[in-house]
Structure formats: C-alpha cells, structure tokens
C-alpha cells in the first residue's frame, strides 16, 4: 500500500506519452512500420504527383513506343510512347482515391446497417438481412456494372458502385458482432443506467465490433484496387488519357510479350500497396485491443 496517495490530479496524465507509445510500437512491430512507410510514400506520390513525375503522363511520343527501361524512361514507355513511371505516379492518385472511396462508402453504408440489424433484431433484422442476401447473391462485378450503368460512367461512379457492392460484406460482419455483443452484461448494465439504443451502439457495440470489421476493411482495400482495375479494363472506370494502375495493367496486358515491364510496374505497385494495407491493418487491430497488449 505504498502508492496509495495518488491524488486525483495525477490520474489523468498517466497514459504514456505519444512518443513513448510510438517508440514501443516501432520496437514491437517493425513490419507494420515498413508498411506504414510504404503507404506514406505512396500517398505522398499521389498528392505530389505533378512535382515528382519526370514526364507529362499523357504526353505521347510515337518515336519511343513500348521501349524497355532506360535512363530517360526508368520504367520504359507504353504503346503510345508515354512514360510508364510518370503514369504510375499519377496512377497512384487515382488508385488510392478509388480504393479509399470504395471502402469508405462500404464502411459508411455497411457498418451502421449491420449494427442496427444485429442489435435491434426482430423484423428489422429480418428485412435488412434479406436485402443483404439479395445483394450478396449477385456476382460483385455484374452488380458494380449495373450500378455504374445507373450512376453513369467514370472513376468516381465506378468506385461508388464498388462501395455499394462491398457494403453487404461489412454489414454482415457488423451484424454478426452486434448479435453477440447485445448479450453482453455491460450492455445490460448500460440499459439499467438508462442509456438509449444509440448510446449503447456508440459506446459499447461499435468499439467492440470494429476489430474484425477493420481487418476486413484492410483486406478490402486491395480488392478495391483490383475492382478499380477490372472496371477500368472494361472501360467503366478511369477514362483515357488519365492513368490508374488498373487501366495501365489492362492496356499493358495486350503487349505483355513485347514489353513486360509496363505490366509488372503497376502490378507490383498494387501488390505492395495491398501488403502495406494488410500489415498496418493487422497492427491497428492489435493496438485497439487492450487485452492483447504485450
């Protein structure tokens, strides 16, 4: 009983300082740090694409089509003689924007709907679940094409539709968690305190349901990248002459035998970004779980 005399004033600031926690995190999870750095680099490329890119990404040079990597064009040129590295850097903007948009829409639609369905139960759950089942029974790409058809062609609309297609996955996960969590005693206790349904969802159900949802979101990011690629490949997403990683693969695929570098570059970019999202997501999940603290 030596430390009995902690006065109320000291209680507030005993959480370790941000710098301390950051240092601990870097020591405990170096892979996630690499992932975060990679993501930062990609995001910086996306934001400052104009300044970083060595060439104009849409400038065509018919004397230098499908060139191999060289000092002038580090990653070669595409079938219209455009610099692949510049297109890749500019494509980062489109791809990051596209996947964030799609996953953001999916989360904003799916999580609340799922939580409400699971927590409320009864006929509300019944109706919402049937609607989700209907959405899930369509092949995602077909549904996305249909939604894009309604909203109109373009990258933003394409990714909105991908978001709508992803939403039921997150909704189902959130619903499953809410079903379990509404049985928790701390939810019963909150009801005894007179908490409204909204407060219980916000304070107890959402924070405890978010872990698997968050992991699913980080797994959806690369899928969104690929969906962007598919839709751009089909001509529903990014419109020429602007570039996105997906549309670059789609275009380079035709010339894979002659100029493989152009296909590897956006492919590797997608792979690396996807991996980075995963490691950061996993680390985030652990950080959010107080019982998993080492």
């Amino acid at each position: 009983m030596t430390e009995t005399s902690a006065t109320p004033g000291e209680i507030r600031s005993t959480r370790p300082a941000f710098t301390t926690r950051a240092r601990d995190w870097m020591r405990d999870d170096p892979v996630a740090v690499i992932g975060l750095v990679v993501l930062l680099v990609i995001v910086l490329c996306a934001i400052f694409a104009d300044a970083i890119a060595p060439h104009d990404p849409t400038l065509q040079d018919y004397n230098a089509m499908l060139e191999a990597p060289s000092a002038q064009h580090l990653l070669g040129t595409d079938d219209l003689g455009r610099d692949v590295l510049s297109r890749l850097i500019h494509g980062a903007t489109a791809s990051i924007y596209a996947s964030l948009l799609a996953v953001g829409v999916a989360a904003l639609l799916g999580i609340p709907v799922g939580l409400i369905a699971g927590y409320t139960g009864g006929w509300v759950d019944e109706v919402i679940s049937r609607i989700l089942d209907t959405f899930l029974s369509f092949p995602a790409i077909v549904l996305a094409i249909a939604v894009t058809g309604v909203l109109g062609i373009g990258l933003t609309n394409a990714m909105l539709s991908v978001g709508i297609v992803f939403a039921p996955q997150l909704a189902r996960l959130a619903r499953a968690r809410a079903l379990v969590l509404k049985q928790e005693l701390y939810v019963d206790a909150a009801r005894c305190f007179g908490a409204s349904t909204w407060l219980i969802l916000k304070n107890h159900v959402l924070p405890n349901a978010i872990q698997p949802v968050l992991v699913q979101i980080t797994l959806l990011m690369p899928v969104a990248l690929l969906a962007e690629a598919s839709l751009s490949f089909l001509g529903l997403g990014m419109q020429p002459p602007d570039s996105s990683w997906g549309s670059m693969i789609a275009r380079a695929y035709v010339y894979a035998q002659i100029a493989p570098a152009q296909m590897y570059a956006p492919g590797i970019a997608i792979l690396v970004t996807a991996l980075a999202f995963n490691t950061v997501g996993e680390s985030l999940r652990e950080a959010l779980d107080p019982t998993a603290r080492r």
Partner: protein
Amino acid sequence: MSDPVIEVRDLKLRFPSLDGTEVVHAVDGVSFRIEAGETFGIIGESGSGKSTIGRVLVGLLNPSDGDIVFAGRSRSSISGREWRKARRGFQMIFQDSNAALNPRMTILDSLIEPMRIAGGRSREEMRETALAALVRVGLRPDMAQRYPHELSGGQKQRVNIARILPLEPRLVVCDEVVAALDVSIRGEILNLFRDLQRDLGLAYAFIAHDISVVAQISDRVAVTYLGRFVELGATGDVIERALHPYTVALLSAEPQPLPRALRDDRRLVLQGDIPSPVNPPSGCRFHTRCPWATEICGRVDPEWRELRSGHRVACHHATPEGLPSPGRAGTREMTATWEETS
C-alpha cells in the same frame, strides 16, 4: 407504512423454448414487495427462475403477465424517456464481474458512464464523484486508469458497485454477486454491501443458490421452486423453523452446520432433478420429489398461506408448528430419503 421500493404483483414470465414449439414458464405467479432499506433474499436452485425475477426487477425483462410497481408507479404507466430516467433507481450487480465491464473502457470511463447518461454534472464533477466512489468501495484512486483485465475479480466487483453509487439507487438487485469469488473475498464484499446499506439506505434483492450467503445478509428470504415462491418469511424463521419440505431439503444440503437447529445427524436427500418448466407437474409443483406428498398434492395447487405472522408457505401439509414427520404423512413411495451422516 411508507410505499415499498418495489412491488411485484402476480408476475408471470414465459419464453418460447429453444426449438420454439413449447413455452417455458420461467416465472409463474410470484408476488412480493421490497421495503426501503431491507434486504430481500431469493434462494433457489438453477432453473428455479430466481435470476429471471432479478432481471424483471430492473426492467431488463418485461413480464408476460402481472405488474411491477416501481416506487409507487406501475411499469405499464411509464414509457420511453421517462422510463429511462426512472429506472436509474433500480440497479443490478451481476455474477460475472468481468463481463459487466466493457473491456475497452478504462475503469474511470466505466465509472463515469452512468453519470454521463444521467447528465447534470460537469466533466470535472463526474471525475471527482467517480474517484470518490472508488475510494468508497475500498479501491485506490489510481485504479481508475486501468483496464478491467488488469484487475482481480473482487476488485472488478467493487468497481461494479462503485459505478452505481452516483445514481443513488433505491434498489440494487444482486444476482449471485459473490458466487464467482474466492471465499476470502466473499466476506469482504458482503460486508461492503452491508456498509453501503447502512450508510445509504439501499434496499437489496439478494439472489443466490447458496443459502448461507443469503442467510448472512437478508432480512427476509423467499425460496423459489420452478418459477414460484414456496416459502417466504423473516430469515430467522425460515431457517430455524422451515415450513416447506423443499426448504428443509435445501437447508439440510447445506454443508456447514450454520443454524444450530440443523445440526442433525440426518440429511434429506431429494431424488431426481428439478422438473422441466416447460411442463410443470400438476398440483403442487414439488410433489414429484416430496417425501410428504399425498394424493391431494398431485391434484390441488396448494394455497399461499400465512401460517405465522409474516411467514408464508405453499404446502398442504405445513402447519404453524412446522411439518409433521414425513413417515406419517407420506403414503406414496418414497421420493426422497433421509440418509444417516456420520
């Protein structure tokens, strides 16, 4: 006499069974009142409906039939927002002290939660009140910044008690609050409950399967069997002069020779299990296991009689002097046996 804190009138609670084809009569016609500042003990084995009664008392379950009167007002006449405010006076402490705390909230946040919902206090006031409550239940204030998993079971149960104090509840339902705790900590927690009652005038509904725990703290005791009360009276009366055969069996199953009267060399051992509440026995629900049972027990539901002042029982054979010896009354084949204990 002033209004009771809570009054339960002919409470019935039915659930659909798991496969949905049958109806479980979890509570089937229970009436009682709890006065301000008293401790009302509810004893019974698993499946007797005692926890269900507890959840109804704080409004976590709604009765299928009957009415609950909270501080003079019928539950059915209070609705929505008003109910959320009124129910703050009726709080519950659960058996699983860990599950009652959100694992993602610090102890301080958990302590502040009920006050934030109630409103009317500044952040600073809430924090001060929370820390004061923590000290009141015997914890150090620096526990406030910890997470539930960093505390022991007994400490968590203290936190659960501390959280409801700022709400100034009139009734606290304690559902098996010490069953999961070490014996050494049990006594401390029971003493804490007693101190709080003395200082704050709380009424308790103390639910337990362990008769010695209930006997220690309760003013009155109700014995439940298959969703009904079989006996209700002052703790001393029920324990020293039990009127119902089931109470006799419960008391004789108690390993400690707690009440002197029970230091008997014989033990009443019931045969079989508690029958299913889906299809309760006809007549007296206990007749299938009762050594006193006669023909009338299977046919007629016994009346809820007040045989002695404030001491009620539902048994055909009970008399104000107690139960006759079972051999004389029992004409059926024995469903329970007296075993010699050494």
